């Protein structure tokens, strides 16, 4: 009964603070404070500061501002135009046209970045202005971006998979491999959806791209060289053993600076602007992460996530029923926690349940990542929604609605995983060695 009371209280306070317009990071701190104050006798202030310091001074976090800075630099180069010039001839004739650049762009960038927010910022900054200029429906631009950016978590390197692998003691290398095919398949499903909408929707009237001969298309592909050079350097440094995932982010920044310098778009002014912009965007995310870390502590003290997981464990379900229950459970939890926190908080109880049901832990890692991806775009606390709100000035409600079809596609993806588990397990089973 305490649990039910706790759930209701958390929800009421959270909705009240967020709804009245309190800044998200500070609202999370407020909710966490109320939770600890009411449900424990622990000293709140000390716990708050200890947790916030630990989460804010973390080395693993440094990849985030670096990838954001990289995006800010690229945004000030001609890279966005170039990527369009390169990709558009190939994608323009597909049903759905240039909206596919959102998805292809995110898929490509996901192979560089371990985070969904960084993927979203970089690709979004490049693609939103271009797509708007060509009169694509705003909802499709926003929605596909919100959804496809979550591929940053599925396609390796992935922060979420690292956290999961460490928590359940499974091979991170294997998990990384397991993420490749499902990530690509999910991207294909997003693209299929875009094609379907473009064929059936009446307000799909984008500016028509000029027709091009095959030779012209190939010639235009030279514009893609800088992008692919950058990506090769970043990915290559990682897979050839020159750099860890975090260091690859630093290489990305330097690569972007070099690229901007070569294009002549780097001067003191644009350097300063990119730096200050990155500083503010990462501060925005850091404040929310600080609040989320404190909320995680508060929920941990109240025992709520574990109580819910215990409840499911007590139902003695079949394998399929268990997965369905976990799906619903993580969707609900993902509305209020960021996905990685909900994994850490519940894995202690969920892991034995999953092992008992003889579910492959590598496969389950991918299942979890899809669910974590969903959490990125579900309100009231969904990171991609926040980032997109910061980028576009649209309201949360609008962005949520735009992203809803992507959410539905991810639910479909869960069933694809359940009925065709090989899509996740084939690659790691057949590639025993590391990526070098």
């Amino acid at each position: 009964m305490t649990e039910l009371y706790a759930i209701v209280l958390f929800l009421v306070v959270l909705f009240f603070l967020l709804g009245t317009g309190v800044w998200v990071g500070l609202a999370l701190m407020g909710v966490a404070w109320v939770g600890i104050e009411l449900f424990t006798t622990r000293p709140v202030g000390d716990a708050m500061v200890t947790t916030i310091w630990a989460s804010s001074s973390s080395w693993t976090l440094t990849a985030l501002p670096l990838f954001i800075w990289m995006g800010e630099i690229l945004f000030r180069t001609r890279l966005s135009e170039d990527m369009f010039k390169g990709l558009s001839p190939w994608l323009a004739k597909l049903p759905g046209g240039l909206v596919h650049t959102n998805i292809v762009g995110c898929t490509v960038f996901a192979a560089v970045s371990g985070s969904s927010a960084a993927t979203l910022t970089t690709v979004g900054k490049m693609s939103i202005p271009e797509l708007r200029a060509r009169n694509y429906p705003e909802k499709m631009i926003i929605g596909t971006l919100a959804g496809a950016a979550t591929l940053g978590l599925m396609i390796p390197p992935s922060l979420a998979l690292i956290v999961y692998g460490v928590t359940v003691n499974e091979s991170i290398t294997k998990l990384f491999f397991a993420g490749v095919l499902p990530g690509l398949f999910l991207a294909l499903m997003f693209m299929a959806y875009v094609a379907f909408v473009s064929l059936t929707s009446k307000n799909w009237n984008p500016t028509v791209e000029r027709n091009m001969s095959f030779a012209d298309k190939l010639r235009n592909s030279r514009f893609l060289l800088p992008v692919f050079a950058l990506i090769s350097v970043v990915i290559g440094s990682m897979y050839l053993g020159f750099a860890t995932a975090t260091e690859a982010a630093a290489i990305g920044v330097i690569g972007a600076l070099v690229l901007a310098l070569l294009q002549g778009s780097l001067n003191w002014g644009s350097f300063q602007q990119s730096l200050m912009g990155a500083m503010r965007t990462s501060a925005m995310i850091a404040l929310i992460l600080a609040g989320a870390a404190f909320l995680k502590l508060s929920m941990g003290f109240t025992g709520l996530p574990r109580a819910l997981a215990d409840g499911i464990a007590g139902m003695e379900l079949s394998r399929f029923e268990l997965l369905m229950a976990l799906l619903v459970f993580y969707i609900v939890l993902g509305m209020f926690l960021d996905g990685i926190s909900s994994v850490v908080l519940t894995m202690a109880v969920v892991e034995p349940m999953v092992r008992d049901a003889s579910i492959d832990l590598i496969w389950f890692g991918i299942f979890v990542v899809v669910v974590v991806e969903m959490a990125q775009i579900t309100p009231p606390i969904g990171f991609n929604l926040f980032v997109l709100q910061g980028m576009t000035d649209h309201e949360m409600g609008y962005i949520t609605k735009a992203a809803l079809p992507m959410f539905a596609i991810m639910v479909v993806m869960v069933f694809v995983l359940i009925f065709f588990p090989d899509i996740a397990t084939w690659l790691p089973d057949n590639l025993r060695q590391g990526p070098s």
Partner: protein
Amino acid sequence: MKALRKSLDALYLISGALAAMCLVAILLLIVVQMVARWTGEVFPGAASYAGYAMAGASFLAFANALNRGSHIRVSILLNALPDGPKRLLDIWCFGLAAAIAWYFTYYAYWFVYWSWKFNEVSQAQDATALWIPQSVMVVGGAILAIALTDNLLTLIVKGEHRLTRDIVDQSFGE
């Protein structure tokens, strides 16, 4: 009064610039660590220093980001309200946010005080006395609290807060 306004704005600008320098420091630290490894050298504690710079880049940037409208909030209700009630709701937001920020700063101060008193040192190879990097949390928290209070008072006295949107940020938003 004007002098106060000027020094406050300078405070937000300087803290933002320092945060940006922390970002550059992260980049340099990681690059130096990487190059050190390639060349068989050791740079002990690089990861910790990058972590401290990360904290600096965050805490020192909070106030600057606030004034430039970078921090996210749900503004459906705010946008729907007429001016009078909107102002009251904004007062509630700034008031509560300022209270949280001051509360945090107060406990952060004692946290750092005890780190100093306990002589707490980093557990990693840098063995830094932790009160030194942790101080950015107090400083940054205080500047954020000041900025929120500043906005709250301006809102009460003049009827509107001082948050703006960055023109560059908007250029890709349109």
